[in-house]
């Protein structure tokens, strides 16, 4: 009972500290900022920005037909579908461009590439032989500029490109020799992109079954999602930083410190304030990432159908050390890449602003602190396959330990000092 009463009292103090920042005016400012940020950077339509959504549509279609992974026979069926689509596309090309002498998709590609790249194109000589140089230029302009972006032919053109990309992925997997591939990648100039020897068994493990994740055949939403995720993460971090910066400084700016911090017990409020600001950071993460996940999974282009797809089956250089489904990957990114680092950032800002006498100095100190934390966590999580298996978990844990110990030591030191913070 005594413990319960004590925790209840602690919770009341924590809630009181949090309530200082959960005020209508502040919430309106955060909401307004959120609306502005979302207008500009909030697009979560992964895989539908460039190609009329064919990456997504084909992935969902084949997942419904073949399941989470594609074995050899299923990939052959997709090859067959592609061949049939090419024949349909040839009919469409004939319909729109037949009068100009372009009768198939191959002719169309030849004209476009030769017209764009000139003598650098492998099709140049053939195109000039077939159409003549003067006519080639006019045909190129007809093909490149004759159709606006939303013309039906453009959509089919994009679908063909998506299929073509899938064929390249299938061929790569079926002809893969992991040891040779590893030796080839070890020659890469930039040392950061060379795989470590440990990665060979992992690559063999991912490709042993000969299957390919359906999600990976046509596009890589887990790679593409990185860009979208990064923008939302920046918004979360900015809000957490904006809340953390004035937290401690307010003690100094307001008139309470003379009474509040006259005793050690009074100064112990600092620990509660830290707890409150960390809880606020968690709350901000939970709310914003809930909105993100809601937008990502729902709607006509929602990723819900792909959540149970494994992301590492058939993968090589960009495989992760641990098997995950797409949903687990998203949750991992939210917790490991955003939530925990934002709490570290909040802690760091809390400590930095301990020594600032006014808001502006605190805000000025926050800028380099934010940048340093951001850089450090970017370095930590850079291409997991290119470091030993335990490098990321160990470094990550060491970072948390160092920040926690530093926080505890500094707060203890402040508490024991004579009054004046």
């Amino acid at each position, binding site marked *: 009972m005594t413990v319960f009463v004590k925790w209840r009292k602690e919770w009341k103090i924590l809630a009181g500290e949090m309530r200082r920042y959960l005020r209508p005016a502040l919430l309106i400012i955060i909401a307004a900022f959120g609306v502005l940020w979302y207008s*500009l950077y909030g697009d979560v339509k992964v895989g539908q920005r460039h190609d009329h959504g064919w990456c997504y549509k084909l992935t969902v279609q084949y997942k419904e037909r073949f399941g989470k992974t594609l074995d050899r026979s299923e990939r052959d069926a997709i090859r067959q579908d592609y061949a049939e689509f090419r024949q349909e596309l040839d009919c469409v090309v004939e319909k729109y461009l037949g009068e100009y002498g372009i009768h198939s998709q191959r002719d169309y590609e030849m004209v476009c590439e030769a017209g764009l790249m000139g003598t650098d194109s492998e099709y140049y000589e053939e195109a000039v032989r077939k159409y003549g140089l003067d006519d080639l230029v006019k045909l190129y302009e007809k093909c490149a500029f004759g159709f606006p972006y939303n013309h039906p032919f453009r959509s089919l053109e994009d679908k063909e490109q998506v299929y073509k990309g899938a064929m390249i992925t299938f061929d790569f997997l079926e002809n893969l020799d992991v040891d040779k591939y590893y030796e080839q990648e070890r020659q890469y100039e930039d040392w950061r992109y060379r795989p470590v020897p440990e990665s060979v068994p992992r690559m063999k493990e991912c490709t042993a079954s000969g299957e390919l994740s359906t999600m990976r055949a046509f596009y890589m939403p887990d790679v593409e999602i990185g860009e979208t995720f990064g923008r939302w993460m920046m918004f979360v971090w900015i809000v957490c930083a904006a809340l953390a910066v004035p937290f401690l400084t307010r003690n100094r*700016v307001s008139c309470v410190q003379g009474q509040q911090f006259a005793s050690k017990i009074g100064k112990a409020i600092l620990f509660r304030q830290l707890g409150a600001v960390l809880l606020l950071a968690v709350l901000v993460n939970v709310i914003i990432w809930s909105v993100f996940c809601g937008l990502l999974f729902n709607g006509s282009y929602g990723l819900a159908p792909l959540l149970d797809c494994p992301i590492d089956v058939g993968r090589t250089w960009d495989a992760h050390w641990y098997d995950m489904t797409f949903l687990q990957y998203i949750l991992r990114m939210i917790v490991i890449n955003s939530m925990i680092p934002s709490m570290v950032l909040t802690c760091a800002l809390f400590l930095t602003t301990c020594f600032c006498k*006014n808001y502006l100095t605190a805000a000025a100190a926050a800028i380099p602190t934010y940048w340093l934390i951001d850089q450090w966590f970017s370095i930590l999580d850079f291409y997991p396959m290119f470091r030993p298996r335990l490098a990321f978990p160990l470094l990550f844990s060491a970072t948390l330990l160092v920040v926690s110990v530093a926080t505890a030591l500094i707060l203890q030191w402040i508490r024991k000092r004579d009054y004046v913070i």
Partner: protein
Amino acid sequence: MFFRNEIRKVLRFPLFWVMIACCAGLNLFVITDGMSYERIGIQAVNEYVRTGNVPSYDEYNVCVNYDEVKESAYDQYYKDFDIMAFKADIEKMFVTPHSAVAQKIIDRNYQKAEARVDEIRQDGEAYDCYYPGVTFSLHEMLYDNLFLLMLFELALIACFMTAYLMKYEEFYDTHQNVYATKIGRSIVFSKAAASAVASALAAFIVITVSVICFLIVLPQSWNFLQSSVSAAMATERRGMVQYPFITWERMSQLRYLLRVCAVTVGYTVTASLVTFVLSFISKNAYINAVLTAMLYFALYVAAAVLPGSNPFGFVLQFTPTWGMLNVPNWFMEYVLNPYMSYPGYETWVCLGWQILAAAATLPLWRYFRRKGIN
């Protein structure tokens, strides 16, 4: 007397000097990092032009091609250049359709650009250049990298200093004495003037240090400064297009640089005045700074997300944020930013927003004068 005291407050604030030093330091890093590779090539070009000797580096075949580039640049970029046809092609490929009124205004501005192109062709300005722009990208390095960074650094300094000064009395808990009388409250105008002057001073220091460093790091910088901005050889790649810089009047690089410096100081003072206006509705310096940042961001978003056919396109890009982002294209036209391609855009944005801030001060001052002080 008030003004002198107010400006002393800023000059005695350590953060003011720390921020100036950090910004200057960051700019020096950007300059040395950006010029580290180009410096050797520029040195090689200077040696070649002076002595005719080609340096022994294999990769600096810019010297071997130098005469060819100089001879062919005019033919490549100016001889058959029809800016109206070029603009029409770009609009067809990259730019979403404008409203009818906007299209008319854009076409009228481009008629001026067309007259300017004819002037460049006739008076020999097209030949007046020293360094090939495509190879060294000095305009991009100086304005797209350095001055763009400086504009935002100086806006941050101006915002912080103004917020600090405006909330100084609240911070030291003397506001109940100072604002007890009308004369005491009129101190805000001295604060506005002091913060504007302090911002201009910060801008002057940072720009001077950065530009001098750039000119020191750039070998034989006088050759660069003397040449014309609109020369054919000075053409650089800008985004998706590559065509000459068509300035609205004849300008050497030196004159262009000085004008950009002056307008940069103007934008810094504008940031200070905007922060001053917002201070009347802010509870403390932190909220003041946050509101200023949000206003600039909102002005950016408003123009970025609305479609090109929106009739308010010109109005929405007549903002300090877009003015600052357009620094590589100040005093010239840029076909991918048609709403900002008219003579005096950057100067009018700066002045216009200062006038707007002054106009907004009047009702806010009346509100402040009558506000109870707690």
